[in-house]
């Protein structure tokens, strides 16, 4: 029976016998630096890693495999650190470099390459189930989720210390002054599946929280936390109550609302406030000058004075009606709209659940004006050019292409308006959700079709729309967008409807309550202050969009055990807490912020404590896993009793201590690991060791491995000479076969398009859509993104062969590969030699070249192929070679 079986049986017996002692379980013991063992063959030891490995080998009578040759080593380390093959130039340089530190300099070069972050980001994204859509019926795109992916790449390239990497993702938003990157990192909370139409919304919200808590516990602590959701853990001393105590750290997180947040770019706030002060001063001066000009006008009725159709100053109260101060066109109250002190007299306060309905007061030429105040942004997103995606202020929207109109409070404090048939759209700048009163006027002239939007007395936009009567709305809604749209939260005052489009000066008269009213319009228009005012622009706060976490506020809800994992079945109340099986201290003090309970910061700080028993072991184990193909404990997401005990527990502890000793620098750890003689071993079998230890538990050799799905695709692109190493930005859509698109419920909308250059980006930047399987990546075992994936499968199956032989991608890139060889060198033998060397990254053997030359000749002689075609087919063979797809 192989060794692994024996050790696993030993664990099983240990548990079954019921002698489990919590302090004895290997993963929960305090982390202590083990002594480096003495070994006989000290000459083999490059660094202490080797002493630990060699001590084990010597104890079992094994000798380490001979060192890999330079080509194999360069290939291994280049793929391991960057996910890419070494180039011919890199190979030549390394092979020719006789300096004793030649290898170390290669490692430094690779770690300095930005492609390092691209490779290692994928390891992390697998753990946090990174995908770019929600799954389920609509499988919506997660807006700006790619910025999270870029954040991970950048953090790894910058060698961010692990505590910062963890804390920023878990609680970047709770930092005192979070930067945009800190918020982007909290996209961590928005990566999972999300049913936007759940049958039981509360249960689904907890399913999501469960997934977040479980992903956190598995990826950072290797605790199979989710197993204790419904009942106490079957094997580990982790109670259901402790599970829910852990969940409580996350329970104040707002459920995903399918939207990104608009936030100021770093440093923009201060600049904005300076500009705003200048603007406010200039504006006050101009308004004062206008007031003086208006005051000089003799009061009287203007010749062509607009008539007031209806006015709702909000001063007289009624529980059921919104009272018209002009006539009897009262509106109906829906919900409880209350009165608060307003811009003038009383104003109406909307709480999001209420609105008022007015008759269709206007349809030809008109002006709607009011004052509005709120400290919340509206609905919609900043790129949208439809007024009706916002939160309704005064709205006559009717869905479909019809003659309607409306004014809305939009994303990021923009005030927008528009009319239908044809759709027209006007928008102010952002930032009006500042708790101040703002005057809004929307004018429409039927004869010219002109519509205009004025904010604070200044024209912000105009357009030409329909010249028909806007008769679609059966009535008008105040404080909500119809139908059933989002309700406005804020105050509205002095709502008035006039019977024609007001001129700019007339609007100014209203906005600034100028003496003389409309009669002063001419004087206003003539005043230089009016031109100055019109030229003033409220400064924009420079913003950006992030997919980030938000909480309900600083007061978290009470948390409970949920019996059998059913959210509706509350058990005892619990306080946030961490599993007691780990010993040590719990979380530190929790400090709420104005926006959040602060619990996630406390948790993140606890996870990254230097004396945490799991965090550093888990990290060290993963670093080892991705260099050696398996963790020292193979169950890298589970260090509990359902997991696998480490084959080299002392080495694991030593490495965990090194993580801390080296400032939590991942790059320093990579250096340490790949500098070891253990990493530099060859992969040849030694019969005695193979028989005694077929799973290579002892590391008597280096394990061969198949390339990952992403490495396969990226390497094919590299062979073809088209690989585009550009990093970051929205994901790309390399072409997919129509047969694959036809599996989508909306084949025409299933996928996007990309230029050939963009289609040749590295696989990390290919859009990850939950409901559509990219055939090449899927068949080579890309991670399933619905759950944390700690270890990729590495299957071999005929589908892979079909894809690599017949698929469009393989065919096209074999052709490009051949074209590259024709371009770069001449003569069949030279071309095939170079092809072989590119694919295997070692000198070509004559026999291999001979075989391909023979093939090419036969293809020409027996199969009627021309030179280019024959070479193309040889390249297809090369791309299918085992040596291309397997390392060592």
């Amino acid at each position: 029976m192989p060794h692994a079986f024996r050790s696993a049986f030993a664990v099983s017996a240990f548990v079954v016998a019921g002698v489990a002692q919590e302090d004895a379980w290997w993963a929960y013991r305090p982390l202590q630096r083990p002594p480096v063992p003495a070994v006989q063959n000290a000459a083999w030891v490059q660094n202490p890693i080797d002493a630990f490995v060699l001590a084990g080998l010597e104890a079992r009578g094994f000798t380490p495999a001979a060192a890999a040759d330079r080509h194999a080593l360069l290939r291994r380390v280049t793929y391991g650190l960057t996910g890419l093959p070494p180039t011919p130039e890199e190979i030549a340089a390394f092979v020719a470099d006789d300096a004793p530190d030649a290898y170390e300099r290669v490692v430094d070069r690779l770690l300095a390459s930005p492609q390092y972050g691209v490779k290692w980001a994928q390891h992390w994204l697998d753990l946090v189930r990174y995908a770019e859509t929600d799954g389920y019926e609509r499988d919506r795109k997660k807006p700006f989720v790619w910025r999270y992916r870029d954040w991970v790449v950048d953090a790894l390239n910058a060698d961010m210390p692990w505590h910062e990497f963890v804390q920023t993702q878990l609680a970047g938003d709770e930092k005192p002054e979070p930067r945009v990157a800190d918020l982007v990192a909290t996209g961590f909370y928005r990566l999972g599946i999300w049913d936007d139409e759940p049958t039981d919304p509360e249960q689904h919200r907890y399913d999501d929280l469960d997934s977040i808590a479980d992903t956190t516990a598995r990826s950072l602590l290797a605790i199979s936390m989710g197993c204790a959701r419904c009942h106490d853990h079957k094997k580990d001393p982790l109670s259901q109550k402790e599970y829910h105590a852990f969940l409580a750290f996350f329970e104040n997180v707002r459920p995903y609302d399918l939207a990104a947040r608009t936030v100021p770019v770093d440093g923009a706030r201060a600049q904005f406030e300076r500009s705003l002060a200048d603007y406010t001063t200039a504006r006050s001066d101009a308004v004062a000058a206008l007031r003086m000009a208006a005051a000089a006008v003799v009061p009287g009725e203007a010749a062509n004075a607009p008539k007031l159709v209806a006015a709702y100053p909000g001063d007289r109260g009624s529980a059921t009606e919104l009272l018209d101060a002009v006539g009897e066109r009262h509106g109906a109250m829906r919900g409880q709209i209350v009165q608060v002190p307003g811009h003038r007299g009383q104003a109406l306060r909307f709480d999001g659940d209420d609105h008022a309905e007015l008759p269709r007061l206007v349809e030809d030429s008109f002006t709607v004006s009011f004052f509005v105040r709120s400290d919340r942004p509206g609905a919609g997103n900043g790129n949208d050019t439809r007024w009706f995606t916002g939160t309704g202020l005064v709205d006559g929207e009717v869905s479909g292409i019809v003659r309607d109109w409306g004014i809305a409070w939009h994303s990021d404090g923009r005030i927008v308006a528009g009319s239908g048939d044809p759709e027209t759209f006007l928008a102010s700048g952002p930032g009006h959700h500042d708790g101040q009163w703002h005057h809004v006027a929307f004018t429409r002239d039927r004869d010219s079709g002109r519509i205009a939007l004025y904010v604070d007395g200044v024209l912000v936009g105009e357009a030409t729309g329909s010249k028909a009567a806007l008769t679609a709305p059966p009535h008008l809604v105040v404080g909500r967008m119809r139908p059933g749209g989002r309700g406005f939260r804020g105050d509205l005052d002095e709502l008035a409807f006039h019977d024609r489009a007001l001129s700019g000066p007339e609007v100014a008269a209203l906005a600034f309550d100028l003496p003389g009213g409309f009669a002063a319009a001419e004087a206003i228009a003539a005043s230089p202050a009016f031109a100055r005012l019109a030229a003033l622009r409220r400064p924009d706060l420079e913003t950006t969009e992030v997919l980030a976490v938000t909480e309900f506020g600083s007061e978290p809800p009470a948390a409970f055990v949920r019996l059998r994992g059913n959210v509706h079945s509350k058990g005892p109340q619990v306080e946030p807490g961490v599993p007691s099986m780990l010993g040590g201290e719990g979380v530190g003090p929790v400090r709420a912020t104005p926006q959040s309970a602060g619990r996630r910061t406390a948790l993140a700080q606890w996870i990254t404590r230097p004396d945490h028993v799991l965090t550093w072991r888990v990290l060290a184990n993963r670093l080892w896993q991705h260099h050696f193909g398996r963790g020292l404990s193979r169950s890298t997401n589970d260090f509990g009793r359902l997991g696998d005990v480490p084959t080299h527990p002392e080495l694991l502890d030593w490495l965990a201590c090194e993580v801390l000793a080296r400032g939590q620098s991942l790059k320093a750890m990579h250096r340490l690991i790949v500098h070891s003689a253990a990493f530099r071993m060859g992969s040849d079998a030694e019969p005695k060791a193979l028989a005694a230890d077929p799973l290579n538990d002892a590391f008597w050799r280096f394990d061969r491995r198949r390339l990952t799905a992403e490495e396969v695709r990226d390497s094919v692109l590299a062979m073809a000479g088209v690989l585009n190493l550009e990093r970051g930005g929205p994901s790309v859509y390399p072409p997919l076969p129509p047969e694959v698109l036809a599996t989508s419920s909306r084949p025409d909308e299933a996928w996007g398009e990309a230029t050939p250059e963009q289609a040749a980006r590295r696989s990390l930047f290919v859009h990850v859509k939950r409901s559509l399987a990219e055939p090449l990546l899927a068949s080579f075992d890309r991670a399933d993104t619905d759950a944390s994936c700690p270890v990729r499968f590495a299957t071999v199956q005929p589908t892979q062969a079909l894809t690599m032989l017949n698929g469009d991608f393989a065919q096209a890139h074999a052709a490009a590969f051949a074209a590259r060889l024709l371009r770069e060198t001449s003569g069949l033998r030279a071309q095939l030699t170079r092809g072989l060397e590119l694919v295997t990254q070692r000198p070509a053997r004559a026999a291999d070249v001979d075989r391909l030359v023979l093939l090419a000749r036969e293809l020409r002689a027996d199969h009627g192929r021309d030179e280019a075609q024959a070479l193309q087919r040889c390249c297809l063979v090369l791309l299918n070679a085992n040596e291309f797809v397997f390392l060592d």
Partner: protein
Amino acid sequence: MNDPTNTFCGRTRREFLWQAGAGFTALGLTDALSRDGFFGDDRKAAGPLAPKPPHHAPKARACIFLFMYGGPSQVDTFDYKPKLYPLDGKTIDIKTKGRGGSKNQGRVVGPKWNFKQYGQCGRWVSDLFPHVGRCVDDLAFVHSMYAESPLHGSAMLMMNSGRILSGAPCLGSWVNYGLGTENQDLPGFVVMLDPSGGPISGAKNWNSGFMPAVYQGTVLRPHGEPILDLAIPAGMTVREQRRLLDALREQNDAHLAPRSDDSNLAARIQSYELAFRMQAHAPEAIDLANESAATRTLYGLDDPRTEDFGRKCLLARRLVERGVRFIQIYSGGNHNDYNWDAHGDLVINHEKHAGATDRPIAALLQDLKQRGLLESTIVVWGGEFGRQPTAEYAEGTGRDHDSAGFTMWLAGGGIRGGMALGATDELGYQAVERPLHVKHLHATILQQMGLDPNRLSFFHAGLAQRLVGTEGAQPVRELIA
């Protein structure tokens, strides 16, 4: 952990090895496992899809799942509710939950088709399915199905993978994982989609979730190139490809020589031979040239309405003959009236979809039976849920979704014919007698195929995951002959 045999640490040994980072490879560790008696005596086609011994003697070798995507209305098809007809147009008190949320009242839409009794057993079938009606003596109706969600997204996942949360393997994946495939030249789990597109959530409906991708369903197209990348590229001949593969084999053999211990490399060499054979055999499986005119007519290939679904049903029979374990055919795709989701005009919608499937389904049952295949092939009919007896909107005949009670039927594969199990209330909304969860349907299918639903497990995320969930589910004994 309920499986005392073959287990340690709650895992089967094989699962342990996958988890153990040894990877999941075609031939990896086959020898060691074979010595342990893991793969039985079969060493010819070892690998993840190698035939594996069942838990018990199977009644069914194959399963054909006719998926009526969108949700057919039970009271208009197989669940006869005479009291519903006179209530047409009346608003009654009835608590329902569907896409439109929870309601306490609804306007009854009387069934739009008449029902007749068929067969020896006298089961009632509506005029939508006159051909299927003639097969009732082979059918076992379950009138009391219920599911956990009345919304397509989660309900589709439930019917296919047993859970409303995305990420679990589908029924066909479990069957292939449990039994392997008999014919290495064809995929073991085949899905045929509607010409209008896949069902919502696309590939999630035949995905292998946390299992290796080798167990996912393969989309098979009834025309042209049946499987993605199966066809040799234009301009290349078979002989030429063979020559390329020979060169590849020599190259790979040379590479393997100093690495002969590595079964993964050998497996990959083998996989190209398998792929080459698939290229020859899979097109033969979809080639109907040898099917008689009578057979083609039987399946409705002579009628544009039934041609597409009929061809797929005929292909299903051919695939069963060739050892494919699990075949799923979708009636309907895309959204709205492209499938059975009759929110608008019930009559137009159901006439269209029943009209496209009635004759082919009956033909499939009849053809399987006359060839002696029905007794070893379990055929399942149903959608992700049914439809409510009341209208969804103020006007029209459209019905909202109903997951509280709906009808499915099974046939063949050791299922008792001519019976009905369970019942909905007298209006047909809710299962009231012998309510059966989707997992009971899954358990019954696995049971008939030789797998113990409560034993078939895959170790993932610290749990012995099962299709029927942690609490398990018993097969429905009454259905089993």
